[in-house]
């Protein structure tokens, strides 16, 4: 039995130039034949114009460009047909539905990638990167994702895998071949190689937090007293009137969220209810919602109008937070003079670290746009600093998926434990239990490490044969 032939619209809904309907499976050509019965099947990999008709009524649905990619040289490794229809919400859906009635079934989410993976067309890291391309919220995220799709992350991980195999081969030589021509490799040398590998794993992880943020967007929470100008700032940053802005205290009761791109990086801006003493009922609930929103934040913007104090309620609200609190002097348009002057005294750093890590406050005006540019820079720097500047890592090295991060993290810990154990005088054959764990941890990211590969490496590197 062959797997089902599947169909789905491959482009996001909404107005756009074209919509692509993709069909994959052994019956892809059969389905196409039923949708375009008048003309012969187009040549492989050549876009050809075809009239797409309803398989039952014969009614014309669209004139579309059709391209056939016979397997295995296709995205999924199976026979694939791509139909580029006119855009909009309706036409692609009609064609998709027609294909379904012509013998395909609707694809489950991610099923195309999954088939590509099963047929060895993509490795696991590439599949996840592909998902990230589709979901990419900003140019930066897209760039990283594209690099990974190229297999850059895969290559980097493959390099680590090679290093792990090399380390195991060294160990195998040490243990299995004590009487050979080459003197046994000193334990210190094995330890040194272990440290090297642990270092590389750690480097890959170092930018992992940014990588995760790239996928999910960095959450920035606006907090402050009612009417402190949060919603105006929110709208100014979002560039669209999202929150209702009124002078009456307590207007924003639920947290409002908007996904946006700042300096090319993905952010999720969250506006919250104003914090004040004696709030009742719905307003109290709003403050609770705000408190919960802080938990997932990468950064908090504490809004205090120029010339006012935050007040004890608001200070208490942000006290003890783990995340950076960036103090923003709002409504700068209301005061005369040098509105962009920095208000050093009013800045709070990470609470509780005695000001050692104080972050300067910024003065902004939602009205005039003053200070907003600088605020955007600061947000990008704060959340994605690891990816900016000269020493920034190749975006392909950014570990994006939680699963990858966990695997690499566990592997890094185990390899480090291996090196440490050797330093402590634990014999290598015992310490190697850590390498076993590391290999298992990386298995989910890079696939299985086969003892044969270790032996291949060993025999290639050492003259064995007493």
């Amino acid at each position, binding site marked *: 039995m062959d797997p089902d032939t599947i169909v789905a619209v491959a482009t996001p809904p909404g107005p756009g130039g074209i919509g692509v309907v993709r069909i994959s499976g052994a019956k892809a050509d059969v389905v196409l034949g039923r949708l375009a019965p008048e003309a012969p099947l187009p040549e492989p990999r050549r876009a050809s114009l075809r009239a797409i008709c309803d398989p039952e009524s014969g009614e014309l649905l669209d004139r579309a460009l059709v391209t056939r990619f016979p397997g295995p040289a296709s995205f999924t490794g199976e026979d694939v047909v791509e139909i580029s229809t006119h855009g909009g919400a309706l036409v692609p859906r009609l064609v998709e539905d027609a294909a379904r009635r012509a013998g395909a079934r609707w694809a489950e989410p991610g099923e195309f990638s999954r088939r590509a993976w099963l047929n*060895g067309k993509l490795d696991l890291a590439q599949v996840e990167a592909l998902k990230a391309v589709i979901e990419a919220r900003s140019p930066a995220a897209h760039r990283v994702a594209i690099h990974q799709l190229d297999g850059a992350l895969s290559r980097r991980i493959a390099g680590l895998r090679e290093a792990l195999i090399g380390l195991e081969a060294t160990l195998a030589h040490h243990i*299995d071949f004590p009487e050979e021509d080459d003197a046994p490799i000193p334990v210190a040398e094995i330890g040194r190689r272990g440290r090297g590998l642990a270092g590389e794993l750690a480097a890959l992880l170092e930018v992992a937090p940014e990588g995760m943020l790239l996928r999910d967007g960095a959450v920035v929470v606006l907090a402050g007293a009612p009417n402190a100008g949060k919603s105006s700032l929110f709208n100014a940053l979002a560039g669209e009137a999202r929150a209702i802005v009124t002078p009456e205290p307590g207007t924003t009761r639920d947290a409002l969220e908007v996904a946006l791109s700042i300096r090319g990086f993905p952010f999720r801006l969250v506006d919250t209810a104003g914090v004040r003493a004696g709030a009742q009922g719905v307003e109290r609930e709003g403050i609770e919602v705000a408190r919960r929103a802080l938990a997932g934040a990468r950064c908090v913007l504490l809004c205090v109008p120029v010339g006012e104090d935050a007040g004890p309620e608001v200070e208490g609200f942000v006290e003890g937070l783990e995340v950076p609190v960036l103090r923003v002097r709002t409504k700068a348009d209301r005061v005369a003079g040098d509105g962009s002057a920095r208000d050093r005294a009013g800045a709070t750093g990470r609470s509780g670290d005695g000001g050692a890590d104080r972050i300067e406050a910024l003065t902004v005006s939602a009205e005039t746009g003053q200070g907003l540019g600088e605020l955007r820079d600061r947000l990008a720097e704060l959340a994605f600093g690891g990816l900016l500047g000269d020493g920034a890592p190749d975006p392909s090295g950014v570990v994006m998926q939680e699963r990858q991060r966990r695997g690499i993290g566990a592997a890094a810990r185990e390899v480090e434990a291996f090196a440490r154990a050797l330093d402590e005088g634990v014999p290598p054959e*015992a310490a190697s239990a*850590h390498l*076993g764990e590391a290999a298992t941890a990386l298995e989910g990211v890079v696939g299985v490490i086969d003892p044969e590969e270790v032996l291949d490496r060993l025999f290639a590197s050492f*003259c064995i*044969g*007493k």
Partner: protein
Amino acid sequence: MELRYDVVVVGGGHAGVEAAAAAARVGVRTCLISPDLDRLGQMSCNPAIGGIAKGVVAREVDALGGVMGRATDASRIHFRMLNRSKGPAVWGPRAQCDRGLYPRAVRRILDEHASLDLVQDLVTGLELAGSRASGVRTRSGLRVRARAVVVTTGTFLRGRIHVGTHDTIPAGRAGEAPSLELATVLEEAGVELGRFKTGTPPRIDGRSVDYARVEVQPGEEGDFRFSALAWEDIPRQVPCWMTWTDERLVDVVGENLHRSALHGGALAGRGPRYCPSIEDKIVRFPDADGHKVFLEPEGLRSRELYVNGLSTSLPPEVQVAFLQTIPGLEEARVTRFGYAIEYDYAPPEQLRHTLELRALEGLWLAGQINGTTGYEEAAGQGVVAGANAALAVRGEGTFEPGRDEAYLGVMIDDLVTRGVDEPYRLFTSRAEFRLLLRQDNAVERLSGRAAELGLLTAGQVEQLEARARAREGLEEWLGGATLPAADANALLEAVGEAPVDQGVRAGELLARPAVDVEGLLAAAGASNDPRAAVPPEAKDQGWGAPWGVGHVVATERKYAGYVEMERKRAQALRRRSAVRLAEELPYGEFVTLSTEARQKLAAVRPGNLAQAGRIPGVTPADLQNLLLEVRRYEGHEKRPGSGEPAAR
């Protein structure tokens, strides 16, 4: 003439000897047929048993009541514990044996088996009853009917020896005829055959060596024993020697490469990378300054030396020429020339984990015929095949040691689930649980099961029980006894460990890397000696000796945390192993698996999920999907009244 047995074993090499002995010990009527009964357990190549991983297998064979450990003890003339400078988990006992004494000991031990008959003959035919093997025919016209046939013909199937590029002789090994008819008969019975090659170095006359120019390598003193459950007398010990080749050898070999059978293209089969000829070494590592050469005595009364490290298939005159470039061997006289041999083997994916052929019931294969190399590997398979053949005759289940139980388990699982593309040898790196599979604890890992299967004699079972009691006594003492600080520190200082401030538990002291059982017991003083509390025969158990039970306890304490890590991983593997995969699963229909995985699974038909995971080409994702597919398939199969059964 017609004879009837339960089990007939074809071939009296290391595999055949163990298979016959194991079947006979289980208690079925067994017959061993081999062309020369004076050469049972003959060492075709280097007369040495053991080494790293291989030495552990020799101990495992012994723990299963086998012949190899005892025969080695009775014939060893030089012993070293390889890796002694490393932790005890990777120690590898290795013994140089007397080429004449070893087969004699084997014969003596086999003769102890009441239900084993030996017949000198060459097997030329296979009797079939339908799709079952039912016996063999021999060159002298004997028909031997049996319910189980175990074939262990080593390098003899269509064996062909090469010396240089012109000289090729059909032979099973030097001076012995090959087995031609049997190869054809097996093929006709549907057994697939492939071709491998291997080689052996020249032997020289020890009187022609200048001993002043070579380095002496004394063996270890002390009575290491391969056999923990039966006692043999160990012969007198002699040294080995070592020397190095230099660039003059490179020149001689390099100029004559085209005259090598291995390099001149005369040989088709694949050879082992870890056992390269000197031709290979020079081609692959041209920059090496020199290669080690070990001179190993072939026996107490023999003057011949085995030249370890110089396996070759160059013509005789070149062998002499390159030998004479080596310091100490300038005047060397060759007694036997090195040669390469090619032979047929049966790709082991055709086997079940019991070593029975999938396609031909009643026929088991063991030893080099399964694509392995080495005496220990052969012997290990012999025990497993012989035991399973006997169990099958009795209808008593199977014996399939796991990867976390024995190197034997690792080896057989590798062979059956992955196949081989070069002659297979064991290394510690093939085992995922190196710390669990040690030479010291082979008895603890395997002998209990061996006793259940009937593989141990009454005497061996007694030893086993004594050993268990000794262990219990020791563990109890370690947990309870406390040494005063002064006594403890005297010991700690002597072995170079940091002192303690106050009295300390004996068990904690033993966890220190440099503290051994003997030292600990001595420091504790006689009144505190657990040996007083256990039966006297246990005192002979060697205690702190590397083969003794005290060593097992000490090693486990020293590695405690790490052994635990491996145990946990072994349990995870066990859980996967517990997911049985039925033989008839329709892998072709499991569409969520990759095409490659479907093909590989259908070819190998693994017995459980863990085995499936080790098949190259089956990914972790395939495994997950396989689990779901199997559940779905089984649910469908079991649903009452679900109409026609799923397609097979």
